[in-house]
Structure formats: C-alpha cells, structure tokens
C-alpha cells in the first residue's frame, strides 16, 4: 500500500466562513505535492488540520490508515508560514530546541545542512535576513525523520537565490517512503520539482493530478494551468 494520507469529505467552517468544503485527497509515498491556490483558498487551514492544530468540522483524515491522534502527530513535520523563532536565540539554540523537542530530529544532518546553506550556528536570530530565516525554517523542518512533511509557503518573502537553495533542499529530502506537501502561490519557481498538483479554490479542490500529465494534456506550464484555474475571478 503506497497511500500515506487519506482525506475524506473534509470540511471546516469558521463562524461566518466556509474554509474547506468536502475535500477528498489521497497522498502517495515517494511524491512531492504542490498545494496551490491564492491567499485565502484554504491551504493553511488544510495543513493545520492535518498537523492537528485545527479540528475539522466534519470528515476524516487518515495517516497510514489511522485517524489523527497524538501518535500520528509524531510522524508529521509541519512548517508554518510565520517566523516562529525567538529573536534572542542563536541558531544553535534553535537546533538544540528541535532536538529536545523531537525524538526523530537528526542533529548531525541538521548542522551539515546549515553549513551547506551557509547559516552560521553562532548567528543570533534577530540578525538573520529573511532569506536566511526562510532557509533555516525549511532546513529544520526537513531534518526531522518522519513520513509526512508539510511546508506552508516556504518561498514567501525569500530572495531568488535563497529560493533556489530551498527548492534544492526539498528535492534532496524526498525519499521513497516520504511525502512532502508544499503550499505556494509562487508556482513557476517550484513547479519542476512537483510530482502532483492540488489546486485549492475557495476551500474545494478545483483540480488535482500528475504534474507531467497535466502539462501534456493542457499543453501549458503549471503556472499556465494555475492562471486558467484561478484567473476567472
């Protein structure tokens, strides 16, 4: 069985907003998924429900065929959009924090990655540029050894060169038994590493499928498809 995550009839209502509406998805191991859609389409809500930070109004989320619980939660590495580091921390303190926090955190590989992406462990967070913070967040999220990674807008507010580094990190992290979900509205930069696409529009899935098949059948780039799907509003 190659399916890692199964979502059935998932809906989420806030007081006056219908954030997700009957979402059905199946994510297979070994693939990188692009969760695409403009701001407010429900990407973050979906990720937060899977990560166990929000409770759905109705529907079911199964990880390895088990409903979400504190046990399944340990198998998910979720990177939120916001910068969640304390300013007074040094980079190495954060690495320490992660390794205390998560049993599966790989300290050695984390430091190797930081060296590769040129983030000095002695730097203090308040001195880091947003490009460096962006790289650090992704590097830490990917240094955990879990089956499901969810990166919420990893390219936001990050310069072009740092974006390439982040995309490279994601490419190298994907393995046969893993699933990486990347949400973004910066499609053109990341589309060449995506296996499958999920277009989320107003809380429903407007289109989903294999990236190459969609390019072939629609004769355009993922960005082109994105414009087709979302452009008519």
């Amino acid at each position, binding site marked *: 069985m190659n399916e890692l995550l199964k979502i059935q009839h998932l809906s989420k209502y806030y007081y006056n907003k219908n954030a997700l509406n009957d979402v059905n998805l199946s994510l297979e191991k*070994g*693939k*990188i998924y692009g969760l695409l859609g403009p701001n407010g389409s429900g990407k973050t809500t979906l990720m937060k429900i899977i990560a166990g930070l929000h409770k759905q109004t109705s529907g079911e989320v199964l990880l390895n065929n088990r409903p979400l619980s504190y046990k399944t939660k340990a198998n998910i590495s979720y990177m939120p959009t916001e910068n969640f580091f304390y300013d007074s921390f040094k980079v190495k303190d954060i690495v320490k924090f992660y390794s205390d926090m998560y049993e599966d955190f790989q300290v050695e590989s984390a430091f190797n990655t930081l060296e590769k992406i040129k983030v000095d462990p002695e730097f203090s967070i308040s001195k880091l540029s947003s490009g460096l913070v962006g790289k650090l967040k992704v590097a830490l999220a990917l240094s955990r050894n879990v089956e499901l990674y969810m990166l919420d807008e990893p390219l936001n507010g990050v310069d072009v060169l740092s974006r*390439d580094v982040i*995309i*490279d990190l994601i*490419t*190298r992290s*994907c393995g046969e038994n893993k699933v990486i979900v990347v949400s973004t509205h910066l499609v*053109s930069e990341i*589309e*060449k*590493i*995506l*296996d499958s696409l999920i277009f989320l529009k107003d809380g429903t899935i407007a289109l989903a499928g294999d990236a*190459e098949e969609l*390019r*072939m059948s629609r*004769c*355009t*780039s*993922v*960005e*082109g498809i994105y414009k087709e799907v979302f452009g008519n509003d």
Partner: protein
Amino acid sequence: MEFNNNIPIYIQVMEKIKQNIVSGKLKLGVKMPSSRDYSAQLGINFNTVARVYKEMELEEILFTKRGLGTFVTKSPERINRLRHEMAKKQINAFINGMQKIGFTKKDMIKFIEMEFNNQERNE
C-alpha cells in the same frame, strides 16, 4: 539545464540525453548517474528522472542491470537508428517551417547550399 515549463520535463530530459548520446558526449555502455544524483544535479524531481530512465529503457536506448545501475546501450545500430530518428525530426520541422514561408523543394535545396557556401567563406 534550463527547462521550458510548458513541455513535460521528462521529455526535455530525454531529448537532452539523446542529444548527448548521438553527439558522442555520452559514450556507448557508459553508466548513467543514479536517479537521485541526476535529479539533484538537474534540480528536478526524483520521480521524473526515474520516469526518464524507464521510458528510455522501453526505447532500448538505456538498460538497467539490477543492483548496478542504468547504462547507455552498447548497440551502435540502436544509436544509428536514434541518430536517424532525430535527424528526420529536425528536417521535417525545417521543411514544415520553410513551406510555411513559401519555399519549394528546389528553393530549399538551393538556399541550403547557398548558406553553407556563405558560412565556409566566412570561416
């Protein structure tokens, strides 16, 4: 390698490998990088490279030895056939384009010769 996002990426990678084989940059029987290394090198998805290798195995341009990796075919006949296929595609595209701007067969041949003469004179 630069990619055109409008065309499936695996097709672009296949074209590139074929070019390298036909032009002799990739020698017969040589070992290809592992899909993981190659995908990192090209900055594309791992599964895309796996797909490229699978498709090119079906075309008998690459072959896989279990546990050892993926290799370029050792058959000069297959490479020759590939060279012909690729040349034919180029020529057809050329003829097509020339016909669109009103060239007949005779004009085309004349024009090609003229251009070659020009280039030789400039060298």
